[in-house]
C-alpha cells in the first residue's frame, strides 16, 4: 500500500517537452517503457493516455517542461512513475482544475481529472507563478 519501500531499478529517462512533436515522442517513450515493464493492453493504454493529457497540459498551459520516466520494481510488482513538470504559470485552484468540465481554454476540461482516474497514484504540486509538477504511478499487470 505505502510506497516507502519502492526500489528504483536505475532506469530513468528524461524527455524535453518543448515542441508539438515532443508530444508524440513522449507517447512513444511511455509506450516503450510500458511494454518493457510488462504492462497489459488496458494498463498500457490507460498510462499512455494519462501521459498524453499531462504532457499536453505541460506544453499548452505550462509553456513546456520535462517528462521523466522511471521504472519501479519493488518485487514482485513492476510499475512506471512519470513526472511531468513545467515552470509555467501554475494552477490557481488545483481542486477546481481537477473537476471534469473545468478548462481555461477551448478544451473539454477532462484531462487532469481523467489522468488521475487512469493511474494508481497521482500527485499534483503547483504554485502560481512558479510552475506545476504532476507525478503519476501505474503498476503493471
Amino acid at each position, binding site marked *: 500500500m505505502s510506497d516507502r519501500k519502492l526500489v528504483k531499478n536505475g532506469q530513468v529517462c528524461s524527455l524535453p517537452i518543448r515542441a*508539438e512533436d515532443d*508530444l*508524440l515522442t513522449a*507517447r512513444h517513450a511511455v509506450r516503450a517503457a510500458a511494454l518493457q515493464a510488462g504492462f497489459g*493492453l*488496458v494498463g*498500457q*493504454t*490507460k498510462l*499512455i*493516455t494519462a501521459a*498524453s*493529457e499531462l504532457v*499536453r497540459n505541460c506544453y499548452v498551459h505550462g509553456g513546456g517542461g520535462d517528462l521523466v520516466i522511471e521504472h519501479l520494481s519493488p518485487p514482485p510488482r513492476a510499475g512506471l512513475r512519470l513526472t511531468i513538470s513545467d515552470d509555467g504559470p501554475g494552477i490557481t485552484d488545483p481542486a477546481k482544475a481537477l473537476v*471534469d468540465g473545468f478548462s481555461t481554454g477551448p*478544451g*473539454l476540461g*477532462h*484531462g487532469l*481529472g*481523467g489522468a488521475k*482516474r*487512469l493511474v494508481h497514484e497521482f500527485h499534483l504540486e503547483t504554485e502560481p507563478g512558479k510552475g506545476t509538477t504532476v507525478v503519476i504511478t501505474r503498476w503493471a499487470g
Partner: protein
Amino acid sequence: MNSSEIPILRLGKVLLAGLSNELDDKTALRFADELSHQVSAIGAEAVVLDITKLEIIDSFAARILVEIATMARLLGARVVLAGMRYPVAITLVELGLDLPGVETALSVEHAMDKLAPPGGSRVG
C-alpha cells in the same frame, strides 16, 4: 485532393476514412477540415471513421471526433465510428468522455449494415 494523411474513400454517398494507429494533433485538425470539405462537396449522407487501428484517444482526439460528428450532422451526414478497440473504450469511459452525438459500430462491416436501408440495396 486529400491533403491530410488519412485516406478518405468515397463509396456512393458514404465516405470511409481509415485512421492509422496514431492520431497527432495536426493530422487530426487537417483531417477534420478535409473531411468537412468532402462531405459538403459530394453531399455525403454518411461518414464511417474506421478506428480499428487507433491505439489512443485522449481528450484532444475525442474533441476532434465530436467536432467532426457535429460538423457532419450540420451538413446532413451521419458519422459512425467503427471498430473502437476495447482498451480505448475503457479509457474513454474513465476520462469521462462518451463522445456525445457520435454513433458507433463494432466494425466497418457493421457500420455499413447500419447505414443500409432495411430491405433496400446496400449503401455504396
